[in-house]
């Protein structure tokens, strides 16, 4: 069998870490090959080496059987290797077409001539059913569409070897389905695809073979159809992973959070984003808010946590009216908040880890004396959390948070939020973009809170999270609650119908 790509004994060292330690990777023509590993396992590094972003410290790369040296992405392009990065490299105020031709524009008498390019783009878009409009501006189109622009960029450069770096992290379930169809079509045409991911379901759905990396080391390459998800997870994490976490019966007690006829308005176009939403969260209960992205869930949580103004309605915490209480008061009363966007809200990336671990507590007597930070206590606190929550980073508590991996950044937030004395945990997409090990960990932590008789309000777009954790599920559609059901009385299909707005639950009929 001929391989289009052979990477043999690739070693790449960064100061303090060996990102790739003699890794082997072989890609067949026309296959979809998954590259599986936890965050920091070295998947992206390996592909960056192939794409010419990094120079390996050892090993060799063969493309179509010939040994090559790939010094930069231009070399990779010439070898027909293309890559869709996890964070898109697009110019936001350029059109789709301008972004695609960037760097290889056609010119006529020194002026850019877009006509042929636009035609080529439209042809490609039609051929693969990408539905991309060449003349739209990037910032006006959805994230899913932006990803397709990145795909078109590769196709436009005649790439035959396509690397997708965590492509589904930013997509909705429907978009994921569509993306997989597109990939299958590519493979059918003889293009070879590398799919970097840590989502086993996707690998099962689309890939033929799978190479597993763990902590920079090559573990194995397996046939996907002969390997179970459990086996792959074990190879990836290095131990057995629980898929369906045991959720024990739990006593449900007093009401902690009451939301009453809450309305939130978009300040710009005066549209209601959250309409007359009411629900309760009780001690010992996990209430999940399900829904397709953009149906008001984010705004609902922002309103409850105090990040957004409430138009009308009431929020009660225990017996207190906290509708218009400032964020700090809510925090002090015992609301923990794991925010949706960990880089925007959850962390100060230019702070050290220990500084981030006292983000809401720095003014408490424990951490200060007369306005001076109490460094010994701060160090101790950080060491404890790092130890208890297994936050891994280069230089421990003094690591710059920016340089910590995403999974560990999330762990830091979880550690900070769950370690405080709380009676309500609001977790927004806590497992987004994380690997199996971390997801398992976070789910366990939330269940632990439930066991401790705390209330948990979980907002997640991943039905896996919702089904695995929730006691009760409310579904939001266009800012309204359309169903409020017990988890055991429902299933993914039913939830899907509620989420799509085609069905309403008992007591939530349209009036």
């Amino acid at each position, binding site marked *: 069998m001929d391989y289009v790509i052979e990477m043999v004994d690739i070693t790449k060292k960064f100061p303090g870490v060996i990102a790739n330690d003699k890794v082997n990777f072989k890609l067949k023509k026309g296959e979809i090959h998954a590259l599986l590993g936890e965050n920091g396992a070295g998947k992206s590094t390996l592909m960056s080496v192939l794409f010419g972003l990094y120079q390996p410290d050892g090993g060799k790369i063969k493309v179509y059987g010939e040994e090559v040296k790939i010094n930069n992405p231009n070399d990779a392009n010439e070898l027909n290797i293309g890559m869709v990065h996890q964070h898109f490299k697009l110019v936001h105020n350029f059109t789709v077409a301008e972004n695609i031709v960037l760097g290889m524009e056609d010119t006529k008498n020194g002026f850019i001539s877009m006509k042929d390019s636009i035609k080529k783009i439209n042809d490609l878009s039609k051929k693969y059913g990408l539905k991309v409009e060449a003349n739209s501006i990037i910032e006006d189109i959805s994230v899913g569409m932006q990803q397709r622009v990145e795909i078109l960029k590769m196709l436009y450069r005649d790439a035959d070897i396509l690397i997708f770096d965590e492509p589904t992290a930013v997509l909705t379930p429907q978009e994921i389905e569509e993306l997989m169809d597109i990939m299958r079509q590519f493979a059918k045409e003889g293009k070879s695809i590398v799919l970097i991911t840590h989502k086993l379901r996707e690998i099962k759905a689309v890939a033929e073979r799978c190479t597993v990396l763990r902590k920079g080391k090559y573990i194995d390459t397996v046939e996907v159809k002969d390997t179970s998800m459990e086996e792959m997870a074990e190879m990836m994490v290095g131990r057995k992973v629980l898929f369906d976490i045991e959720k024990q019966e739990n006593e449900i007690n007093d009401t902690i959070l009451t939301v009453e006829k809450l309305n939130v308005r978009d300040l710009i176009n005066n549209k209601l984003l959250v309409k007359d939403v009411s629900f309760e969260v009780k001690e010992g209960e996990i209430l999940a808010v399900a829904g397709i992205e953009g149906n008001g869930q984010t705004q609902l949580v922002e309103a409850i946590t105090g990040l957004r103004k409430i138009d009308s309605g009431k929020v009660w915490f225990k017996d207190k009216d906290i509708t218009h209480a400032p964020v700090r008061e809510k925090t002090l009363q015992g609301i923990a908040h794991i925010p949706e966007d960990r*880089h925007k809200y959850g962390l100060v990336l230019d702070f050290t880890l220990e500084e981030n671990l006292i983000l809401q507590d*720095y003014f408490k007597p424990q951490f200060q004396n007369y306005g*001076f*930070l109490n460094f010994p206590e701060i160090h101790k606190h950080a060491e404890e959390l790092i130890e208890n929550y297994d936050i891994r980073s280069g230089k421990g508590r003094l690591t710059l948070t920016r340089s910590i991996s995403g999974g560990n950044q999330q762990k830091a937030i979880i550690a900070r939020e769950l370690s405080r004395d709380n009676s309500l945990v609001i977790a927004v997409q806590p497992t987004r973009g994380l690997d199996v090990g971390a997801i398992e960990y976070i789910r366990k932590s939330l269940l632990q809170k439930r066991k401790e008789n705390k209330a948990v309000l979980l907002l997640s777009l991943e039905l896996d999270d919702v089904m695995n954790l929730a006691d009760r599920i409310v579904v939001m559609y266009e800012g309204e609650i359309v169903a409020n059901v017990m988890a055991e009385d429902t299933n993914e299909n039913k939830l899907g119908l509620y989420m799509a707005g085609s069905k309403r639950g008992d007591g939530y009929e349209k009036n």
Partner: protein
Amino acid sequence: MRKIDKDKPLKLTTSELLALDVSKAKVSILSSLLSIFMGLVLGMIIMLIVKPESSFGGLATILTGGFQDGAQSFGNVLHYSTPLILAGLSVGFAFKAGLFNIGGAGQIVVGGFVAIYIGVKWTWLPSEIHWIVAMLGAGLAGALWASVPGLLKAYRNVHEVVATIMMNYIGMYLVLILIKGSVYNSDKNETVSVPRAARLPRWGLDKIFEGSYVSAGIIIAIIVSIIIYIIIFKTTLGYQLRMVGHNRHAAKYAGVNEKRNIVYSMLIAGALAGLAGGTIYLSPAGRHIEIVSQLVSEGFDGIAVALLGMSHPLGVLFAGFFFGYIKTGGFYMQSWGFDEEIINIIIASIIYFSALALIFRTKATQIILLFGKWFRNIFKKEKPKDKENRGDLDEEDN
């Protein structure tokens, strides 16, 4: 216009990733030195154009002028550094909290006026504390002046750059009006001289640096730098301010009152600029506010000092010394027959070019990396790889 998203996760290029390992301080210091060097090159070019035959001598004088007449020159270096350090701290402090204080000129002149007023009018104060009261008055006045843009920014979302620039002019003209009604010397069209008793004491520094203008001001500037360092890095207030400065969304999430912090940081920044004004107009050199429509240059030099010092209080301290040193050197350049205006242009180009230190940050990182690599390669005797790596590092950063 699209805002650059600072909070976006880093996608590291090789050099950036490697750079994480190079200590931040090393990079900062090296890039500052590199920009100073570039500034000197530019100054040299200007001298070559204006007066080629004296250019090398001129450059040598700029570089050594701070020691030209021994202790006296160095005393003057300290004297010139004083307000620059304080003005630089003002800009740097606000910057740490995410605010750009361009209002130094206004805060300095308002602070300076109050200092002169107290110095001239409140002669009933005992002479031991007269200058202290005058300095405190200067700091308070500066804080008051900066509080206006601070409040506007916090509660009306008026951009602080616009507000502080406006306040520069309002401050300048208001001071000119107030001078005419109070401490006006109509013969010289400037303020009345502050009596010796109210000027900054010399604390024996004049014995060490004989014949210079040096005063207690420099000691105050050093102490204030250390205090600001402590505030920024060791107190809860500083922690909050840095949080707001780095990521205001996270600060909001953490329950920090952003509005109050904006006001606080402007108050402190203004007080620092006010103190700078105090040290200028209470100095033993006896400077006066002239009745001319001209903004105080130290206000803007402060921006350059803060930039060169990377807004770090101790960096600002050294950047202030450096600019004071160059200014003193410029003074001696007259002996090479350069016109005063040309000297000012040369100094300004060195100062402002030096302030572009930030631009050289990536270059500095690169240089450290390349040296490191070069060194390691010699050590390992891996000759062929060396060259290629250099090439690709350069490309990535350009």
